[in-house]
């Protein structure tokens, strides 16, 4: 196992009831890189993403077989599907941003501070620093610094999504999972968030699901192509988009799919 692989997935199968949604996934995700998942709708991208921080545990009839190893996160190294893994600590280190912005119905400040408070940060001055820092990283500090007490629900969709990113950053994760974070946003907000990914790469490992080919080429270092619960192609973004080895992947990328 090379040392720069932060996540290694081996032979992962996932079932929703009797339906096999992931059919033996093997892949490694490199530290401080952006990895994008592409593929047609319903092929299991979100499902795999949600395995990485065990969000699938919340779904009642979901069964997972296989292993996901973490390498180089303090206190978590090993298989996340082991019995005595502290799931909450896992999710603290592997943050997630969802397709639709889902800010809590409370103030902007409380939204960002919710995570740190969860993990035991109580002092107001510490929280202030974390909130400001996270909002800055998410590129929304200037728009919000004057009204942190305002309800987050009243912000625009693009702003809300950046609040969600800031909220995820506030717990200081090592990995950030993003499931189509820009699909509900206008081009301008999308560009802001893409830029953000570029900057965040320095400190975080990012895995992003996207339906937008240009987005994948613009921001990601590695790309994985999914079809029907399997990864058919995985390599550097350049390679996958310019010289795809898999014919279905080529068809999909060039828009001749189906």
């Amino acid at each position, binding site marked *: 196992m090379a040392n720069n692989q932060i996540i290694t997935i081996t032979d992962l199968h996932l079932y929703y009831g009797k339906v096999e949604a992931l059919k033996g996934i093997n892949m490694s995700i490199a530290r401080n890189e952006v990895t994008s998942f592409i593929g047609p709708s319903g092929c299991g991208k979100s499902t795999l993403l949600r395995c990485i921080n065990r969000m699938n545990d919340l779904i*009642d009839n979901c069964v997972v077989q296989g292993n996901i190893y973490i390498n180089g996160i303090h206190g978590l190294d090993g298989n996340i599907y082991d019995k005595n893994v502290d799931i909450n600590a896992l999710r603290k280190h592997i943050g997630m941003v969802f397709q639709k912005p889902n800010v809590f*119905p409370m103030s902007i400040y409380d939204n960002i501070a919710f*995570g740190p408070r969860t993990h035991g940060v109580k002092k107001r001055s510490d929280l202030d620093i974390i909130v400001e820092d996270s909002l800055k990283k998410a590129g929304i500090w200037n728009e919000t610094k004057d009204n942190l007490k305002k*309800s987050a*629900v009243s912000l625009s969709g693009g702003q809300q999504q950046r609040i969600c990113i800031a909220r*995820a950053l506030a*717990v200081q994760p090592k990995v950030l999972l993003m499931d189509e974070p820009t699909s509900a946003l206008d081009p301008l907000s999308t560009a802001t968030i893409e830029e953000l990914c570029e900057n965040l790469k320095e400190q975080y490992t990012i895995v992003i699901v996207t339906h937008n080919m240009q987005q994948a080429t613009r921001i990601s270092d590695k790309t994985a192509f999914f079809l029907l619960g399997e990864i058919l192609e995985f390599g550097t973004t350049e390679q996958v988009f310019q010289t795809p080895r898999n014919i279905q992947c080529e068809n999909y990328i060039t828009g001749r799919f189906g």
Partner: protein
Amino acid sequence: MTIQQNTTSKFIHVRERVIKYSLFSSAMFSVIALFAIVVFLLSRGIPAISQVGLWKFLFGTDWNPNASTPVYGIFPMILGSIYVTGLATIISLIFGLFIAIFLYKFCPKKFRSTIEQVINLLAAVPSIVYGLFGIMIVVPVLREIAPNFVGHGILASSIILSIMVLPTIVSISLSALRSVPRELYEGALALGATREQSVFKVIFPAARSGVYTAIILSIGRAIGETMAVIMVIGGSPQMPTSLFQSIDTLTALIARSAREESGFLVEVLIAVGVVLLFFALILNYILMKIKERKVAHNYKIQLKKNNEKANRSTIVGLTKFIIIVQEYWKIFWQTIGKSIKFVLTKPIYYFAYLLKITRLSLLWYKFWAWIDTWWSVHNRQTIKYKILKWWTYIASTCGVLMLLAILYFIISGGLPYLSWEFIFGKYTLDNPTLMPAIVGTLIVVGIALVIAIPIGVACAIFLSEYARQARGVKYLRLAIDSLAAIPSIVYGLFGFIVFVGIFGWDYSLIAGGLALSIMTLPTVIRITEESLLAVHHTYREASRALGASKVRTTFRIVLPSSLSGIGNAMIQTIGRAISESAVLILTIGMVVGVMPSNILSPGTTLSLNIYYFGNTLYPDQAAATGVVLLILVLILNLGLSLIVKLLSKKQGK
């Protein structure tokens, strides 16, 4: 660092489990309560029934517990309950369904919310106030009309009950109508149907299962209603032969006699409670079956039927339903009914009477079918629907007027006697006051709240956050639904047996408060759970994805988002507790003149006072108490909308 993390995570782990199990045990409370009610009622009722003899008990036509050889036949009361319930439901349907349709389509937008609020207000009026309205207005008016100068009886009770169940029918039918896909309506319009035709032919039939639910619920409500009925039914255990005749129902019989009697009669009354419980659970079962029918399946069938019945009117459809009931009735008559014939000579007359009614309905059907063909021949279909449409206007006006009438008569009757002295003065025989009742109400409502809210909210949290699909949850829900279906007088009997009797507390405020808290539990659970389920799941996901534990997510994110629902549950509980009287009449003793000194003293509440004053020499005081009660209920309702508004504003929605 690592060690510290381990201990905190261990602590969180333990906390999670502790909280989960305490939520679970709160949830189990409803199961235990249901179990206890059934067990205690059966253990006292069954021996009594077997001593009297099941047949003689259920189908005996004589009720005379004071004779030298007492006879306990409750058939007159069973018939009384059935007649009153049936008639009330029919009256209420004739108005309620059309009010719902009116609100759904024909009502001008600016009136809609007002009328809806008026209907909701009808639901908030305490049943005892309806009873008061009954003896003040309905009975005297009917006395004028009646051929035999008797105002009490089936008609009076049915009228009162039909007003009471009206809100149930309207609100449930309305939500059923609103859940019919819009495409259906638009599709009908696109085919060239008029607005009225689309509503009556397409939308209304598609909402049918909701209407059935409404019917069953209002039957349940009507059959279990005690205090409104007890005031206008008359109270003689005679076989009902006329609309104007003093008779009795099961609930009224229990409420009237259980307090005053002792010895074997009490056991028999508990047995009557068993019969009521039985009715309630059967109705609940039917309700469950209706709900269980899969929505998609239902929808498909309805579409098909709509096509088949394209030429038939809704009224004919409803009449069809009556005819089906008649078919069942015939089968019943040929099998069981015939054998009853040998045992009972008298009641045949009433069965024949029932048959006559059903035959009338057949005639009605033929009449409408005739009109139907006549109109289709003349191609004037639209006129019929215009008439139906006008009926929706008339029905709605009647509904609103009814509420105004109730408010007017109670207030005009009671206001002159309302004074500071009457409310807060010291109680004497010549000058009865409300002070003991106010104290009693506060204590009883307080006890009910303190018990029902924490347990109910915990149970709702368990249901919505921890047990969405677990296996046993089906039974938990069944228990909660059954609790909701049990008539309040049965809760009264339960409190009477267990708290008053077995616990030896005698008639006391605590006994009433406990019985009341069990009774209001299902309401608390339902309303809270609804509001928890309304919290979007993405909030939960977001919180969990940040590493927040389930408990933290539940208590910090989900619960605050649903605070307005919990506020709603609280106010509704207070409202029910204030209005309730059937439970309390058997548990707190209706001691009107003495100030309660602690929770073990007997006492009274405002609603019980209305019954007491209305039945004794203080009719004016009854009306004045009614005014006080109405004002309280109005304030509560205002408070409710205020709370909801405030909380949703705070959340920035």
